[in-house]
């Protein structure tokens, strides 16, 4: 009887434990995948009192610096794993594995040395002229952050109506809330690519490859739809490109969600 009672007491921990394992595993898989694609680096905090180094501007500079010099994605994340079904558990595991991969490749002092380098460069950057700012930009890279985002020149509602109608008419029998769109812009503002993605990956669960993604990988129809939409969007109007440090850049606007859609 006592044994059963103890067993019942531990049931929640057994389930939680399994969840943590899953999230940890996914974190590890993603870290290895990202590292092989060009590496990512997560949440290194500067142990510095100077308030200048705790600003959004400085964090952004870190991202720019890592991308330009090492082709590494730098990302600030709160890492703690208190609630098992928390996104942080995933990031916690991701960071741990990414750390070890990055240090293995670049050496044990890589992060400390780079931090020093960045602090020096940041002082130069603060007084840089418009022309000097160019050296911080990797013009081949498709950025996902910018000081000024791409903008449609015209009525944004017409744009979202068009996209939503396109999706509604082409994705029959689908849960539309699960489908999101990401758009790639060139530095002159034209659209170079459109990708349909699974919104659930971002808003609900971490690694949910649902039926749609499976279909997409196995069906040429979706690739053609993406091409068709790219062409149609370019015909719909003009865009102002994204800017970073006063330079026009390539940009990937991730996940234009259907929730933007309002109808009167």
């Amino acid at each position, binding site marked *: 009887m006592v044994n059963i009672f103890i067993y019942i007491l531990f049931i929640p921990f057994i389930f939680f434990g399994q969840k943590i394992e899953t999230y940890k595993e996914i974190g590890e898989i993603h870290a290895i995948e990202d590292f092989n694609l060009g590496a990512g680096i997560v949440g290194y905090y500067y142990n510095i009192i100077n308030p200048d180094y*705790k*600003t959004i501007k400085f964090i952004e500079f870190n991202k720019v610096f890592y991308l330009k010099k090492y082709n590494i994605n730098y990302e600030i994340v709160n890492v703690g794993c208190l609630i098992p079904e928390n996104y942080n558990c995933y990031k916690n595991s991701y960071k741990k594995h990414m750390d070890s991969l990055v240090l293995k490749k670049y050496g044990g002092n890589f992060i400390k040395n780079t931090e020093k380098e960045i602090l020096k460069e940041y002082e130069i950057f603060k007084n840089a002229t418009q022309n000097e700012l160019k050296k911080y930009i990797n013009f081949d890279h498709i950025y996902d952050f910018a000081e000024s985002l791409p903008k449609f020149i015209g009525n944004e509602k017409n744009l979202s109506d068009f996209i939503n109608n396109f999706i509604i008419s082409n994705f029959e029998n689908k849960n539309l809330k699960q489908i999101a769109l990401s758009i790639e812009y060139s530095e002159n503002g034209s659209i170079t690519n459109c990708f349909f993605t699974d919104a659930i990956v971002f808003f609900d669960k971490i690694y949910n490859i649902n039926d749609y993604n499976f279909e997409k990988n196995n069906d040429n129809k979706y690739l053609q739809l993406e091409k068709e939409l790219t062409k149609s969007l370019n015909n719909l109007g003009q865009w102002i490109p994204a800017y970073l440090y006063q330079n026009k850049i390539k940009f990937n606007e991730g996940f234009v969600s259907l929730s933007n859609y309002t109808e*009167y």
Partner: protein
Amino acid sequence: MNQFKKHIISFLILFFLLNSYSQNFKSCKEAKKKASYDFKHNEIKIDIFNRFNDSIFQSDKFDVFFENYLFTNYNLKNKMFFFDDYKNTKCYNEIILKKIKYKHGNHFIKKTIQNAKKSHKEFLNSNEDSLSKFINSDKIYYLVDSRIRFKGNDKKIMIFLENLISNICNKKEDLESIRIDLTISTKGIVTNCKIISNLINNNKKSNIKNQILLKINSLGKWIPAYLYNQKVNSTINLYPFSNNFSFSLW
């Protein structure tokens, strides 16, 4: 001694009762004052149209239309806002209703909802060309379908504002609180500007305003706001020093 204790206790009870009464009275008075102020500025921050409970408003399509209808036809803004304390809501309500009835007549609420419903039906059956009649081109709309955007690099505007304001205000702590509201016309031009800050005096504010209005249009044009597929005047809120905010890691 016991008698003395009793007196002390009853005194304390009386003190707390009186204190809470006077606080309630004070906050009711403040709520009434706020109601008068809001009415003067054409804003009703209470649900006098029963928008939360009437099923017709449950559809976003009508609720948003209604808010714009109210603004277009009666110059009234009905942004939702509730006081925490029910008594204060009552005090606020009392004054607002009194003033509404005095200005627009006894059946204003009922009639407005009825007329808005009719207008919405008409709106739904309208074609693109006739949508303009639901808009007053002189008004500065606060609820729009497509927001204002600068036709270029946003940073250009922010750097301009940052430099201009830093030259006028010396204290760093004054700067982070600043909000600049720019009114953009249908032609994509800045026509007015308002400086919002509790830390900057009026002289400095008007100096900043004049400088902005003098120079900002030379930086480029804006994509105006759209409502019902028509360009409308609207306002954009800018926080020029937001990029310098401290990043909280926890």
